[in-house]
């Protein structure tokens, strides 16, 4: 135990603390604090206009915070000795000169960062864009542009990846590729922070989520925990022509029964087999018996209800 007292390494950890950005009329981000751990994919979620992009831009020293700090591995982005070798970021789809070829776009970045120009070829290979290396950016499809953005972010083989809406404009095949790619990077021990509004995609991709609305933190934690904290477990949809009889039988088992606008019963407190047995015992005919798992979308909508929209 004598040499086990090394301080926990902050390598690859992103820490946002009290971050605030006040624009003329809008407080885009308001006293926001959260952490992002290495080795996991963290989804950064929020309705449009919640302040996701402003937060990421403050993290990357592109926007100056009104208050608070944002650090990567314990340093502000501007203080990182070799930012591109530490952090890779993709902020918008179309961030290359339209008249420049893909490979030259990457070479320009390599030159500025002091990376060998061969890294440009390797990065293009990594995202499968080598055949289009010498084509000009204006001839790229949206998906190719996204891949070029990822190639640019990977030039320095960074420990931390920050992506703003990377799935935008990707086709289903591209989205699947992206999912595998990011999971793999996290598996290698890198930090992956992804902002998105595609909740079903996030449920497949993210290990942790940070949910913000109106510039403030709503919830942070592992996906399972955030899901579990919301709904009181699973809910079961039941359709039956004898709704009243079944409701009476279920309430006798201290279940909670609600009815939706189509007359479908939404039962919680008992599981599907118990409902089936109760129906059989009461001689009630069933047309549907479906367990609804709480999903990210529902949780997200509940959490951000009333906080979305134009501010």
């Amino acid at each position, binding site marked *: 135990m004598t040499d086990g007292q090394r301080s926990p390494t902050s390598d690859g950890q992103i820490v946002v603390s009290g971050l605030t950005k006040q624009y003329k009329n809008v407080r885009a981000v308001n006293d926001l604090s959260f952490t992002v751990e290495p080795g996991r994919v963290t989804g950064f979620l929020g309705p449009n206009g919640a302040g996701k*992009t*402003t937060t990421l*831009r403050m993290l*990357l*020293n*592109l*926007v*100056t915070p009104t208050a608070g700090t944002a650090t990567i591995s314990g340093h502000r*982005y*501007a203080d*990182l000795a070799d*930012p*591109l070798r530490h*952090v890779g*970021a993709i*902020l*918008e789809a*179309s*961030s*290359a*000169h*339209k*008249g*420049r*070829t893909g490979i*030259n776009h990457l*070479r*320009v*970045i390599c*030159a*500025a*960062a*002091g990376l060998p120009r061969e890294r440009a070829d390797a990065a293009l290979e990594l995202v499968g864009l080598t055949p289009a290396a010498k084509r000009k950016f204006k001839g790229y499809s949206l998906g190719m542009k996204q891949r070029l953005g990822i190639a*640019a972010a990977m030039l320095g083989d960074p420990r931390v990846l920050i992506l703003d809406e990377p799935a935008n404009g990707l086709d289903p095949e591209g989205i699947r590729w992206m999912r595998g790619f990011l999971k793999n990077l996290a598996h290698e021990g890198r930090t992956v922070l992804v902002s998105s509004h595609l909740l079903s995609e996030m449920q497949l991709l993210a290990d942790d989520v940070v949910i913000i609305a109106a510039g403030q933190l709503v919830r942070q934690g592992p996906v399972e925990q955030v899901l579990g904290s919301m709904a009181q477990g699973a809910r079961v949809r039941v359709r039956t022509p004898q709704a009243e009889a079944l409701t009476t039988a279920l309430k006798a088992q201290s279940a909670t029964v609600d009815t939706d606008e189509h007359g479908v019963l939404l039962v919680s407190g008992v599981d599907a087999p118990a409902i089936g047995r109760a129906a059989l015992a009461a001689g009630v005919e069933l047309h549907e018996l479906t367990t609804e798992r709480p999903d990210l979308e529902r949780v997200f909508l509940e959490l951000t209800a009333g906080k979305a929209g134009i501010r």
Partner: protein
Amino acid sequence: MNLVRSELLKIRTTNTWWIFALITLPLWALTLLINWLQADALTSNNMGELSAEQAAQFEAAASPDALSSNLFTTGQFFGLLIVMLLGIIVVTSEFFHQTVTTTFLTSPHRTAVMVAKLVAAGVLALLFWLVTTALNLVAGSAVLNAVGVDSQLGNDAAWRAIGLNLLAYLLWAVFGVGIGVLIRSQIGATVTGILLYLGGSIGAIFVIAILADRWGDWINNLQLLVPSLASSLMVTGADIPGNPPRWAGAAVLIGYAVVTGVVGTLLMRRRDIS
């Protein structure tokens, strides 16, 4: 150093520089023709009746010093405009194509990026000056021989003008970068730059002439404050009577370049990129 290499690579990997070079060439040829005709007229000595003051001005303008200085800096008027536009584009294209995010992610030290841009624009200006001067030395000597003056390749005044011409190219490139930072819109900055350069000088000549009529000749010295007039004053081979001294033109231009360069850099340091 890496940043300068990157900035130069940015310029090299797009079409802008050679399109601008192609535009410069015919404009240079046009100015050469005008300068030739002017040199021819100045040396043919049939100017008719002149006042004593005008005669003195002509004599100064027709001296080998002035003639050769003028010819060896042929193309300056449009060359400076082109170099200024290139300086503008070095900055505004980053906003136009949204590459400024990538640029500042790659190097968060914005002052260093701005210095690299100023240097890169300067290198570009140097190249434009180098090519134009090479052409001028050949074509200018030929014209001087044709009008009966020696080629003047050993003339100190001529070489001083060529050197000052380089200074003008560099300063206008810096000036362009400054305008680009102040006006991020590519079209807005370009149009403003051209207006400032062309309209500014023509308009200023008018206004100054009218004001000088009203309040006296000292107003003429104010033309010094118009950047394009200051730079053409700077490269005249000899002090023309009635015009402000050349060093004053240089001082004014350097002042403008320093102010736009520094203000531009300070603005860029503070600005939110979104």
